[in-house]
């Protein structure tokens, strides 16, 4: 870019950096992924105060500030509460590569839980997807599972 006096305005680039991190999933989060891997089953946790079942399970209910310990089995089916068909290109900071588009991500209320679960939905035609539709989780084969969120491939609409 040039300024008013035709002087070139320079920028400096950071270059390609690899920045690996490692995150603890925690006690209940680890249980959640083990349950998916071994039994293809979702786990939530019930708050003793508000009685809400939250997924993924965690140690504390934010609004109630209560310690949680009652794990609850959930269905692998649920209802779409919100979604978007993502259509613009961007770099995934986890991989440093462009995330394949278009894809649909949404928030699903799993049967038996009171909050919503964020994941992919395998329908990219916005005329064929609606808030309120029922969906079902599709899992990876057990041998391919790695104990992370991608052990659930996506949710598919039950038609």
């Amino acid at each position: 870019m040039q300024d008013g006096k035709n002087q070139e305005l320079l920028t400096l680039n950071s270059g390609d950096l690899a920045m690996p991190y490692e995150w603890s999933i925690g006690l209940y989060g680890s249980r959640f992924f083990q349950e998916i891997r071994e039994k293809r089953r979702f786990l939530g946790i019930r708050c003793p105060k508000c009685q809400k079942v939250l997924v993924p399970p965690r140690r504390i209910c934010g609004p109630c500030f209560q310690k949680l310990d009652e794990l609850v089995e959930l269905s692998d089916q649920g209802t779409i509460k919100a979604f978007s068909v993502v259509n613009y290109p961007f770099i995934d900071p986890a991989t440093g590569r462009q995330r394949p588009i278009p894809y649909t991500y949404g928030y699903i209320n799993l049967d038996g839980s009171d909050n919503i679960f964020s994941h992919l939905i395998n329908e990219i035609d916005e005329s064929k997807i609606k808030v309120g539709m029922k969906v079902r989780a599709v899992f990876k084969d057990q041998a391919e599972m790695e104990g992370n969120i991608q052990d659930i491939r996506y949710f598919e609409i039950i038609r």
Partner: protein
Amino acid sequence: MARRVAIVGTGQTHHRSHRLDVNGRELIHEAVERALKDCELTIRDIDAIVIGNMDHFESINYVDTWSVEGSGGYMKPIMKVTTGGTTGTSVAIAAYYHVASGLFDKVLAIGWEKNSESDTTGAIITCSDPVWDRFSYSGAIPSLATEASAYMEQYGATQEDAARVAVRERTHAMNNPYAQLHGRPITIKDVMESAMLAYPIKLLDVCPRTDGACAVVFAAEGTAERIAPKPAWIKACAVRHAATWFGDVDYNTGLLSLKRASLEVYEKAGIRHPVEELDVAELYLPYSYAGLKWIEVLGFCGPGEGPKFIWEGHSDMGGKLPINPSGGVMSTNCIGATALLRTAEAALQIMGKGDKRQVPDVKTALATGFGGCWWSDAIIMSSKKP
């Protein structure tokens, strides 16, 4: 008992998508210089500074330490506040607390961002939970889009309804020489025909990426009246942070944090009917659908009535309650400065310094901030000392 506090001066940069003519420090300095000039103070008059931005955007953290010659903070108490999109209002409210506490008389609040220097979407994605959300999360636009999808289903609102909000913002921006997108008005058709970024959000439904900074001077009662002929008195402010689990957001109850923050400021300011009692509102509306849903949450109209309120022109200049005479976030979004710009623009209106974007005879103004995991701040200002 807290001291009364007023805004006595504001300054902002000329906002552009790329400000290659300045580095971060110089950008900050541009806003600070203008704010000091606005209230005829020098940096020596300033007792303390609160500064903020979106920490990891420019990949140069600790702005409080590296920008001292830009902020004027040499040998002064400086505090950094970073709360995501709310940063600007959080900075303002922290500056207010500094003065209200009685510890400082004149405090400078600064917000800034050079979004051209970062991968904004990549940086925003790193705000999401790395274990649970980051794999599917795709930054600000789709997360707002999901909210829009739920709102449309709940109340039958349409993409055209949202487009009407975008048209208002860009029409208002024509009056604001500082706005990034102040060049030309847009039509509903323009919005509808713009590229679909993330259903139902199209290119013209959402804010731009901006380089810019804003600075605001707060002063205590006794000092404020001497500095400014018409100070903008802070009547009430509130901060609400919601759950950080994205999955704990209830899309059907409105924006809970904004609801709670606004209820608190209305109560403190004695406001019962916001549309009648507020003269202007500078709202942090990062996308068009927020201009429908969030005004319901703010009590400007009933649930599901946002579209009707907008179409009837109540929020246009000359309407019952003009919203965003500046052109709002959809015309300028230098994220760490964005909510401070709402604060500054609301103060400008009370001080009568709005030039072409001035709403006549403003006595009470509302400014809001929005950010991160559905956080909200709200500030009410008054021309009368509370």
